[in-house]
């Protein structure tokens, strides 16, 4: 069955709700509206208001209450309407959700998922466009997972829901409807702690995640026509990083370009660069290249400014070629 990413996520949620009575969904406008992007459309009708719950407009409340229910045997899947609005819940996620297992010496656990749409390029302005993953990539105990397409999204979301650890699951808004592919069956689950080699390559490796994976694959295909062999590694797990796969892939190509939509300084790709520098610096044939957003507070609304913000990603092809020729 061919689906776009939002429909794949919808199907994944539906299949999991059928599979396990302990799972319930909670978020703003996810009930009769079916969510801001339609991820839960029709699910309240199908499963009832107890299992697909519209919450009052309070993110700390959503996450905090979900955590309490997880401590008492439920498996909540929270939807934060836009990732930009997750910050009222930052304390619950950082101080409570991520630390519960550790601080109780394994007595309690927090089997819960927090889904949130992120990313720009949709003229959403400052607060409907942000890439917020780096803030959450510093919380041992929490997993941060970002799928790059419909099939992965469904198969990763299922693993996240079945995991006994908390997962922040970030979905790029622009990937929701722009990518279409065949998705797996109800039992297809992909590991949430492993990076995925999307394309092998020996001249250069692009490491990225989310929406940019498909972009990187296109660039690699284009450069293949010129005779260059470019690999693409999808991080999948933004935290913790799958260091073994990252290092193996980088060694195989010798040159690494890192790509992220977040602000450049303090970005998760900087952590990848640090791992590479620390472990295999002398096996690399060129300096590590980072392509990321300029260090301005957020994505502005006007098309001209938004394009300027995202311009770095348009340079991927030439930057990759330049790195190959370095």
């Amino acid at each position, binding site marked *: 069955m061919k689906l776009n990413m939002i429909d794949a996520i919808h199907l994944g949620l539906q299949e999991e709700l059928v599979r396990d009575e302990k799972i319930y969904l909670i978020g703003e406008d996810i009930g009769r509206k079916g969510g801001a992007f339609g991820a839960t459309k029709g699910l309240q009708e199908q499963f009832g208001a107890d299992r697909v719950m519209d919450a009052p407009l309070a993110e700390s409340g959503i996450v*905090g*209450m979900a955590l309490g229910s997880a401590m*008492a045997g439920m498996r909540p899947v929270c939807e934060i309407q836009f990732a930009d609005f997750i910050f009222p819940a930052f*304390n619950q996620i950082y101080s409570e959700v991520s630390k519960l297992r*550790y*601080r109780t010496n394994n007595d309690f656990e927090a089997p819960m998922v927090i889904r949130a749409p992120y990313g720009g390029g949709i003229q959403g302005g400052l607060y409907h466009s942000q890439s917020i993953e780096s803030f959450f990539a510093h919380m041992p*105990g929490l997993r941060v997972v970002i799928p790059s397409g419909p099939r992965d999204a469904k198969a990763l979301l299922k693993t996240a829901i079945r995991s006994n650890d908390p997962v922040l699951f970030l979905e790029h808004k622009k990937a929701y409807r722009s990518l279409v592919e065949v998705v797996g069956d109800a039992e297809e689950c992909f590991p949430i702690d492993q990076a995925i080699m999307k394309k092998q390559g020996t001249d250069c490796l692009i490491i990225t995640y989310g929406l940019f994976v498909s972009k990187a694959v296109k660039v690699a295909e284009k450069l293949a026509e010129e005779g260059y062999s470019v690999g693409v590694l999808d991080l999948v797990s933004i935290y913790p990083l799958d260091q073994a796969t990252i290092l193996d892939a980088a060694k195989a190509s010798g040159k690494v370009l890192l790509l992220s939509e977040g602000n450049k300084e303090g970005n998760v790709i900087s952590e990848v660069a640090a791992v590479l520098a620390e472990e295999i610096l002398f096996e690399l044939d060129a300096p590590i290249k980072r392509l990321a957003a300029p260090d301005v507070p957020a994505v502005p609304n006007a098309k001209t400014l938004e394009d300027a913000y995202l311009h770095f990603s348009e340079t991927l092809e030439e930057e990759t070629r330049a790195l190959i020729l370095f």
Partner: protein
Amino acid sequence: MQKTAINYEKMYELLILARKIDERFWQLNRAGEAPFVISGKGHEGFQVALAQLLNQKIDWMAPYYRDLPLVLGFGETPKSVFLNLLSKADDTNSGGRQMAFHWGNQANHILSHSSPVTTQFLHACGVALALKKQGQPGIVVTTVGDGSTSQGDFHEALNFASVFNLPVLFIIENNHIAMSVAQEDQYKQKDFSGFGQAYQIKYAKIDGTNVMSSYQDLQKIIEEMRAEPQPVLVEADVVRLTAHSSDDDGSYLNEQERNYQENKDPVTIFQQELLAQQLLSQEKMTEIEEQISDLIDEVTEEALAAADPAADTLEQFVYEEGEGK
């Protein structure tokens, strides 16, 4: 509903146990054995009563740091609270990972809480939601200090409990001070009844220093909650008979604040009432006190001799084990 006879002796035992453990904790702190003490001294009255009224098999609690009497009445043993104080390996709350007085023990239906205040209010809502979804009976009790009512989570929790009609007993332990900041600099309300009204949930104010009246007031509230599951907000008027914690000397308190607090010691009040109403004899009280003192000497020794957490367990239990990084 059939009322069981009130067990005054049991409540007196718990009150004295909590008070004497508290006193020993401070001694251990001064002796350099315990790095940190934060005390429930003055908050014990309603906690002792509440512990009798809950049913640990079906009820849950999400306490805060002043709730030593409450957790002692909800399955924590004298030994376990000493192990917690000293951050020992066998501390059932966190295996020595958290600061002392940060409770949490699944077997006892006590939720784990952190240091940022008031987050547990939402966790209590979550447990109540889970009980509702699972069709289970039981209520969830959660507590917080009066200063902590300024936090957003306090208001989100009351609103969520109201909207989803969750059987949570929210208790504000009002000692009229938040660390050093006086009540009038913390909030302008005379009491918290306005929050009950705002969130459309029942509100009651009780004298939290008085075991007997607390028992009667809470019994009525809890019976109502069991008959018809719903949230209730209780303001328990209590006193803080110590400084904020062992890291504070309380020197900022004025004369009036000091006198007010000292005249409302829950132990003295309960003793006087028990004697006046001839519910417990002086001899029995003395016997209980002596037994508890002996017990505390014993567990102090055991806890001091207990093993510290092994350094090589530092990286354990970040994620479900076996999965790991």
